């Protein structure tokens, strides 16, 4: 187990290094002079302003030196400043990331809560015409564009529940918990639906696979009732592929949240980044991508490791 942890940590370090190099190269890959491009958005910039920005970003040094300065600055907690306001970008991000993270986590919870029973039921009622219907329904769920579903929900809710606030600012949970959750309900549902459909499909296949194993036959022949066989024996073993898929789904949910935020006019990270693209505020985009991606990598690694420590069978198959 110790050896496994060391190897996982080395892998983790490698991926984080790779991510940081790619994100670092981002500004340097801009065709032409990055400083010129950034200032171009504001109209005519003088040569001295361009040179000043180039100095500020350290673009005149050789690449490895630039990378070293960039990384060591971040290690000191300096993630750069917004070009236009001079405000530390980390402050901007910290202000906005909360609601995006909340949307991602709420949708993940909803998806887990609904997809496990849905998958088990689908496995139970497999075969024949229901397979065709279920397949078309779940794949429709998977391919449902979130921004469309969101728009339709806003439209429908306005007709059926005219008093329900679906757009505009999100009241803070600490002050108006009920209004807050009510406001987050539709965005959460919109984000979660495609993931519920794909997780339910994964659960279904894993369940069918588990139910066809020898130990299930043994359990049945021992006279255990169908409930115990399904939920204690089959379900536990189907959770291995399911949990593996959860990590990937968290990334999808986050991507979906960026889009769904726009539909429901939620001022989260998505809105911040889109504004940054329009303003060519590269340090902001760079830091957002770096912070979020590294968080995902680290969280996934922790979950993966915990799961392997808990489940001997998954640990054995490394």
């Amino acid at each position, binding site marked *: 187990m110790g050896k496994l942890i060391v190897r996982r940590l080395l*892998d983790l370090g*490698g*991926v984080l290094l*790779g*991510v940081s190099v*790619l*994100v670092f190269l*981002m500004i340097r*890959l*801009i*065709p032409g002079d990055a400083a010129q491009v950034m200032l171009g958005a504001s109209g005519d910039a003088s040569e001295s302003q361009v040179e000043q920005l180039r100095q500020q970003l350290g673009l005149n040094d050789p690449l490895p030196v630039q990378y070293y300065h960039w990384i060591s600055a971040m290690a000191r907690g300096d993630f750069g400043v917004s070009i236009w306001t001079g405000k530390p970008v980390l402050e901007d991000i910290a202000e906005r990331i909360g609601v995006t993270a909340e949307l991602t986590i709420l949708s993940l919870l909803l998806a887990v809560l609904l997809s496990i029973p849905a998958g088990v039921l689908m496995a139970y009622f497999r075969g024949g015409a229901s*397979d*065709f219907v279920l*397949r*078309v329904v779940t*794949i*429709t769920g*998977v*391919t*449902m*564009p*979130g*921004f*469309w579903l969101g*728009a*339709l929900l*806003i*439209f429908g809710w*306005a007709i059926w529940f005219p008093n329900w606030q679906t757009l505009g600012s999100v009241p803070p949970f600490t002050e108006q918990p009920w209004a807050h959750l009510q406001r987050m309900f539709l965005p959460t549902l919109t984000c979660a639906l495609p993931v519920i459909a794909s997780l339910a499909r994964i659960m279904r*296949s894993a369940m*069918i*696979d588990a139910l066809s194993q020898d130990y299930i036959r043994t359990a049945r022949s021992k006279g255990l009732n169908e409930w115990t066989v399904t939920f204690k024996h089959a379900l536990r073993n189907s959770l291995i592929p399911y949990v593996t898929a959860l990590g990937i789904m968290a*990334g*999808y949910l*986050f*991507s979906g949240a*960026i*889009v769904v935020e*726009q*539909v429901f006019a939620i001022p989260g990270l*998505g809105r911040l*980044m*889109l504004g*940054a*693209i329009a303003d*060519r505020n*590269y340090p902001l*985009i760079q830091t*957002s*991508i770096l912070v*979020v*991606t590294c968080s*995902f*990598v680290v969280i996934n690694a922790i979950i993966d490791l915990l799961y392997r420590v808990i489940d001997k069978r998954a640990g054995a198959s490394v």
Partner: protein
Amino acid sequence: MGTRLWRVLAHAFAHNPVLMLAAALVVVQVLASVFAPLIAPYDPVAQAVESRLAAPSAEFWLGTDKLGRDVLSRILHGYQSSLGIAFSAVLAALLFGGTLGIWAGFKGGWVDRVIMRLADVLFAFPIILLAIGVIAILGTNATSTVIAIAVVYAPIFARLMRGPTLVLRSADYVHAARSFGSGDLRIVVWHIMPNLASVILVQASLSLSTAILLEASLSFLGIGSQPPAPSLGRMLSEGRDYIFIAPWACIFSGFAILLASLGFNLLGDGLRDRLDPRLRGID
């Protein structure tokens, strides 16, 4: 090998209702996108102020938008741009990622390690952030959308091609071919690639389905292809502003995105069941 794949496919399509539905959706939509300029009843960018926000009628089957543009004509042209971008991006990802994957699997050693670690790093990014990063570098236009989507999908094809290549390179018939003096390129093209055809077919179809959604998301966010080119994602985004007065623009453009993505997903999913021996009997 090639003829056998065709026979399996022909049999699968004739006997599987899901695949038949998928094929019908894909064929109709691809034809509609290719022949959009011929079958669209109106010019997709022609504005007609007098018929703004007209409801669906015999004259405008799917209604008009806020500038009086025919929604049906815009959807047909939107298909052309959405499917065109998704096809180009998946093809680029397949050629670039697939080649690197085959190279990694065939060579092994440090070539393999470098390529696959790079794929791992790209996999670590949430897709939307990877796409946003590429678009931030290259600017907002159709070409950078293609490149952004290709960057997202290239590592998937690299991983997919590497595995089977790794197994096949030590197959008996590959050793036999080598002993007859076949070079690396010949072995890859004649003895390895034909075996990857079915895997490529399945993954390309599934990737097209999600690439269509990603393209629509990017143009919905305003960082995809730019006006006046018709785009399904942007139509939906514009239609949202007047959804309570004229819901049709938003509803029909979103439905078009769903159908396009759904067709390729059902196709890939059905083909996977038929062509992937590991999955037979599970579904």
